[in-house]
Structure formats: C-alpha cells, structure tokens
C-alpha cells in the first residue's frame, strides 16, 4: 500500500483550511536537526494569517474559469514532461488531485456541520455535534455525487450507478457529461485513451481514502453524440471495504 507515502507527500505545502497546519512529522524533525531550531512562522504585524480569516469566506467566491483552465493546462503540460506514457500521465494527474480530495473532505464536513447546527442551536454546539461521516458506500457516493461536485463544479454529477456484473460488485460509476476540467482540452488522436479528468478521479480517491474507504478511481471516455466529453469515473473499492460493508449491512447500519 502506498497510502502513507501519499499522505506524507501532500503535506509539504499546506493549502486549504483544516489541513493547513499539518506538517509531516519526520520532515520537520529532520529539518530541525539541520537548521537552528525554527521559531515558528513569522506573521505580518497586521496578523493577516489564515487563522484570522473565516474558513467560509471563500465559500461563494468566484474566480475566472479561464484562470483555472490555464493552471490546469500547465499542470498537464508539466506532468507530461515527466512521464513515460498515457497511463503514467493519468497516474500523475490522479496524484495531483488526491490531496485536494483529502482537504475538501474536511471542508465538506465542516460546512455541512455548520449549516446543520446553525439551524438548531448555538454555534458552541458545533464540536458536540459531529457530522454524519459516511459509514456505508452509498452515503459516501452520494456525498461525492452531490456536495463534492457542487463545491467543485457548482452542480451535481450526472449519474451514479452500480456495476451490474456479479463479478465486480465493488465497482461503482459516477458520470459527468461534460467535465469542467476538460472543457477546453482536445486530446490528440494518438493519445485518444487519455482523459485529463484523471485529476478529478484523484480528488474522488482522496475523498474515499479520507473517509476510510480504500478505493482506486479512474476516469474513462464514454462519448455520446450529444456529450462528446462524457466521462465515467470508475470507483473500485478494496476487499476490506467490501467485507466491512457486509458486516455493517448485517448489523443494520445505514
């Protein structure tokens, strides 16, 4: 399992709310020994730090779609320079999305929590009322299909399906008819298998792993005449997840 390594790798730069202070233990110890002990981070005198700003301030903020497209395109170009083939490229894009999934999961919890408690009681009760973390696969998939998609793309995904094959009960599919990340991308003919939404697959994988549902997620082209960019995200849950699923089902956990 490569999971621990991935977690460690993503924390070298902290970006995005709840995970922001996490720095890999080993790394910081290592650095402590080689430089004089750091006094912690310097902060501006006006204290414009991440701790002084509300986590929801960017909740409904907008930026230009073009900026995203240019950054994403450059991410793809950069990844392309260091890979051996299409699969390798998709793997790298997946890896770049993965940490986003971990972070977004916390953000989603935080926000669903905030909205559910604001209607009931005072804000002091937030810590006492933990959000409903998905325990079963289906609620997890709904979290991805709905809230996650809305947070990222301002709309839910287009479909959610379970594999019909009895041999692959661990496979689920989430469909996006027109993935935002691919809007401006035309993949060259010789790379026709490539789908840059592997980045989004990585985000999904991060969310699944962060929830304790070990999974492999891949993006596949499934064009239709109406939706030339239609993409299926295939989620394959691990053995342990499927076994737990059975136990929970018998126990009547929803």
């Amino acid at each position: 399992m490569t999971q621990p390594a991935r977690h460690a790798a993503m924390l070298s730069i902290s970006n995005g709310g709840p995970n922001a202070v996490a720095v890999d233990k080993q790394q910081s110890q290592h650095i402590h020994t080689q430089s004089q002990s750091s006094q912690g981070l310097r902060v501006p005198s006006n204290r414009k730090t991440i701790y002084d700003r509300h986590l929801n301030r960017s909740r409904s903020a907008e930026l230009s779609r073009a900026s995203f497209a240019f950054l994403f395109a450059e991410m793809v170009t950069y990844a392309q320079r260091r890979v051996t083939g299409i699969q390798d490229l998709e793997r790298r894009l997946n890896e770049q999305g993965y940490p986003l999934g971990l972070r977004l999961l916390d953000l989603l919890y935080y926000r669903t929590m905030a909205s559910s408690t604001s209607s009931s009681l005072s804000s002091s009760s937030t810590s006492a009322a933990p959000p409903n973390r998905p325990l079963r696969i289906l609620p997890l998939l709904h979290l991805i299909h709905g809230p996650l998609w809305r947070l990222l793309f301002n709309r839910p995904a287009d479909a959610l399906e379970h594999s019909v094959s009895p041999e692959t009960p661990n496979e689920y599919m989430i469909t996006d008819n027109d993935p935002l990340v691919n809007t401006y991308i035309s993949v060259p003919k010789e790379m026709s298998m490539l789908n840059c939404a592997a980045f989004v697959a990585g985000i999904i994988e991060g969310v699944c792993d962060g929830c304790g549902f070990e999974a492999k997620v891949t993006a596949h082209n499934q064009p239709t005449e109406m939706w030339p960019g239609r993409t299926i995200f295939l989620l394959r849950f691990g053995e342990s997840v499927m076994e737990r699923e059975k136990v929970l089902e018998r126990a009547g956990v929803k």
Partner: protein
Amino acid sequence: MAVFSLIIINKAGGLVYQREFQPGLRKLSTNDYLVLAGTFHGVHAITRSITPKLPLVATTTNPPIAPTTATTPTPNVTSPSSTSTPTPSSSSSTYTYPNPGIPATGLECLETDKFRLTCFQTLTGTKFLLFTEPTMVNIDVVMKKIYELYADFVMKNPFYQLEMPVRCESFDRNLQGWLRGRT
C-alpha cells in the same frame, strides 16, 4: 449570410489552420493554401510598410475602447506625436491610429464580385483570414467570436503547441456549431 472559410496564419506567416464552412467550395491543394498564407503574410507586411498612414478600411464599426487618452478620432491624420512617451516612435505611431485594436497598417480587406476576404491581425501578430459573401455585414462580430473561440479552445489546450498547426477537435466543433447557429 455565408461565411465561406477561415484561415489562420501564425506570426511567422505559416498556415496553421484552414477550414471550409460551406459544402461544395472549391478546395485548393495544401501547398496552395500554404502559398496563399505566406503570400498574404508578405503582402500584408509590405502594405503596412509602404503606407503606414493609410486610411483605414474600417472593419469594425464600434469605437475602440482602448485607454488611449490621446487617440485621434479620425483616420488619415499624421501622427500628432504628442505622446510624451519613452516608447520607440514606431509603436507610438501605431497607437495614434484610431483603431489600435487592429494594427493600423497592412491589408485588411480584399474584395471580388463573389467574395470578400477580411484580415484581422491580433496585437500578438496572429492573422485570421475570413472568406465571406461580399455583402456580409458585421464581419467584426464574427471575427471577434472566432478570436474568443481560439483563445478558449486553442490557447487553453495543453496539447496545443504555440505557432504549430491547430488540431483541436473542440475548436472545430465549437466554431462550426457557432457559425451554424448564426444562420
């Protein structure tokens, strides 16, 4: 009003894109298109250099919204040279033209009984050549939209290399879709 075809010429005068939008148009060989692009590029440069103060054959009807406080309102005036800028004289003379969005020099329009060729050169030096019916109006609107589609589906495509031939399937699709939707 029919748009017949589009040609895009890169900064160096190379043909990077050519598409027809009407069935039954007479096709040239690839080589002829290359020659056409190169020739036009050359003629464009020459017309620009021989008559830098040529009155503009204005293809845009809307006034420029450039932040040019010293813009002269009418074409065909000599440079007011009132620009107290440290910029080289050449670029300040370009700027004094009334439509700075389109470099003021160089061939912009070529017409026959049967078609009109309109050239739009971006500030970065890329040329869009549009072949239309001679009576077509609002070519500037079409040109602007094509430039926007180019900025979206060519420039934001990580697999497109600058200055190289444009092979972007979604550019073709969106361009054709938009042109079809117009008629």
